[in-house]
């Protein structure tokens, strides 16, 4: 329990490893139309060390949520492997998977059954997996509700009687009652007010220390990700374009897309005005991704080669040659980085 910050050395098994994971959707198609293919996730490889928080950022439609769904076994990958604790999960059934990996979703208003009491909602995983007697299950539910900071009487309430922050606490209790190794947090605080967001972020940090959890933390709020994440992966149109430690990404971003993302985050500092980030309009149509580097139509420093060759996600050393600590390998997919 005290092992909170396990270093990312090679002896430690990875909590999660993705090997060239892809998901392709077929869109449309009928008598007169050819079906279009959409590569929602395109050959994503990622290693998440145990006990760390991996932040995953990117604009809407970049494939973050599809990636999360594949990890949870909610949609099968088109190709590639997912390894949890070193074991492949492709053929594992969902029930076995649920013991290791659990989700916390964005909207606590739609992720809880409105017709069930909180005790039933939180205890459901235990009943499905037939763990313990009903009495033991009830005790575990009580203990879990206490851990996430809900009063005892909450067990008999319905979700409709609770505030957004309380509901998200219920969702967290339900995710953690199976004692998973890995929790996928998909925008867990975006639907909450800022004063409540801080309560939930503190809770997530406390529970991570308490249970030695590993988080994959998906968010569009860069300030929140910077606060929580040990490492960070930036996605653009289904691909990871940059990955590294928090310090690397936030102090010396190498990919122009990462730089634009960071520049557009608005911190509460008056007088700075709104940055002019010089990106064109929104993302290109994902069914017809641009040739070469997918980012080149919006890239402020694009060169002719960027529209011809696809840059590979490859390891980099920092420009100053300064190391950011052991095992802090960074990767970037840009010809010019």
């Amino acid at each position: 329990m005290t092992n909170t910050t396990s270093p990312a050395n090679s002896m430690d098994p990875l909590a999660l490893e993705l090997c060239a994971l892809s998901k392709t959707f077929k869109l449309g198609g009928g008598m007169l139309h050819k079906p279009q293919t959409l590569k929602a996730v395109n050959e994503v490889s990622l290693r998440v060390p145990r006990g760390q928080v991996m932040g995953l950022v990117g604009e809407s439609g970049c494939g973050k949520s599809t990636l999360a769904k594949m990890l949870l076994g909610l949609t099968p990958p088109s190709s590639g492997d997912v390894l949890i604790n070193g074991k492949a999960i492709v053929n594992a059934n969902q029930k076995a998977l649920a013991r290791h990996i659990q989700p916390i979703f964005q909207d606590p208003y739609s992720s809880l059954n409105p017709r069930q009491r909180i005790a039933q909602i939180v205890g459901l995983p235990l009943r499905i997996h037939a763990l313990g007697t009903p009495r033991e299950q009830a005790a575990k539910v009580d203990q879990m509700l206490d851990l996430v900071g809900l009063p005892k009487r909450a067990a008999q309430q319905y979700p409709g009687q609770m505030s957004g922050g309380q509901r998200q606490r219920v969702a967290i209790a339900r995710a953690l009652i199976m004692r998973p190794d890995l929790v996928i947090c998909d925008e867990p605080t975006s639907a909450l007010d800022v004063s409540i967001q801080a309560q939930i972020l503190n809770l997530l940090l406390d529970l991570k220390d308490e249970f030695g959890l590993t988080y994959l933390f998906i968010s569009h709020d860069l300030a929140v990700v910077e606060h929580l994440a040990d490492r960070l992966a930036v996605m653009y149109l289904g691909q990871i374009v940059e990955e590294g430690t928090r310090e690397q990404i936030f102090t010396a971003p190498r990919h122009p897309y990462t730089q634009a993302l960071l520049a557009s985050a608005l911190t509460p500092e008056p007088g700075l005005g709104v940055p002019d980030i010089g990106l064109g309009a929104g993302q290109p149509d994902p069914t017809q991704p641009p040739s070469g580097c997918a980012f080149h139509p919006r890239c402020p420093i694009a060169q002719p080669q960027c529209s011809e060759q696809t840059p590979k996600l490859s390891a980099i050393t920092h420009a100053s040659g300064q190391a950011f600590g052991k095992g802090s390998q960074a990767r970037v997919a840009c010809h010019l980085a």
Partner: protein
Amino acid sequence: MSNLSTAEHSAATSSPLLTVKQLRVDLPVAKGTLHAVRGIDFHVERGEMLCLVGESGCGKSMTSLALMGLLPRKAQVNADCLNFDGVDLLTVPERERSNLRGARMAMIFQEPMTALNPAYTLGNQLSEALRRHQRVSRQAAHDRALYLLKRVGISAAEERMRQYPHQLSGGLRQRVMIAMALMCEPDLIIADEPTTALDVTIQAQILHLLRDLQQEFGTAIIFITHDLGVVARIADRVAVMYAGEVIETASAQALFKAPSHPYTQGLLRCIPTPGKTLPGSRLQAIPGVVPSLVGKIEGCAFCNRCDQADERCRTTPPLQAVAGEHFSRCHFAHQLASPAPLNDQEVTS
């Protein structure tokens, strides 16, 4: 507020564009009456950006709907004064009011997909916004729509004019909404969380655009948001709302430098700020939740979540001047107004 001599705006020659005094909005609900807006005062000068900031349920959207006259029929609006450039919005006949809407005060909503009509082309909707209020030819309306679409940064504007809302991305739709709001060159635009549904990169572009257009057209904007980062970057003045009241109002510089209401201070402390909050440290959350707005609230609405609260807070604090045009609704406002850097305590926690 407006008759104070500390004029920070150059347009001090005339009275404020909008004056709101003791605005109250009540909604009948099953358990009684929900006091969504509980007597708020503010004003908007010509050409300024006023940010109304607060969390969900604080009454900021109800305030904007009351100003636009778009509240549900069962809602009751009362005020001592609701004056828009000499027009009393409380007594103006509905017919005249609907002439004001769009022509002199326009609104930009959070979700442009629900605000645009899916069955009409963009060109059609944009032109109608102008032709509804002014006698101009089809061609003139079309030209203005085209000009504004280009002005808000939409490429291939001629082609877009023939498209339907569903053919555009969220960011483009919001640009169209902005263009539509500008069709009649209104004096006031109310923008209700216009960038909340957008990605950060698109948000920065839209905010940049709004700021540019505001300076070009001299439009006053009431910008409603819950995001203090946005407020800091675009606001001239800020009004912070809590539980249906304005609890602090000041220039953006003063508010962020020396917040003097415990709620504002708490809000600024609880957001992680790069360079100020230590990554992975516990944030200083505001404990508890907002009070129910059904029925009467005795004393200060924030006192159950406030670590400064004592006996005095059982009585309702007045909105008192802290300095110049900086007002705070707190008994301890003067003690709290010291400009201490707030987030420094954070790092040690």
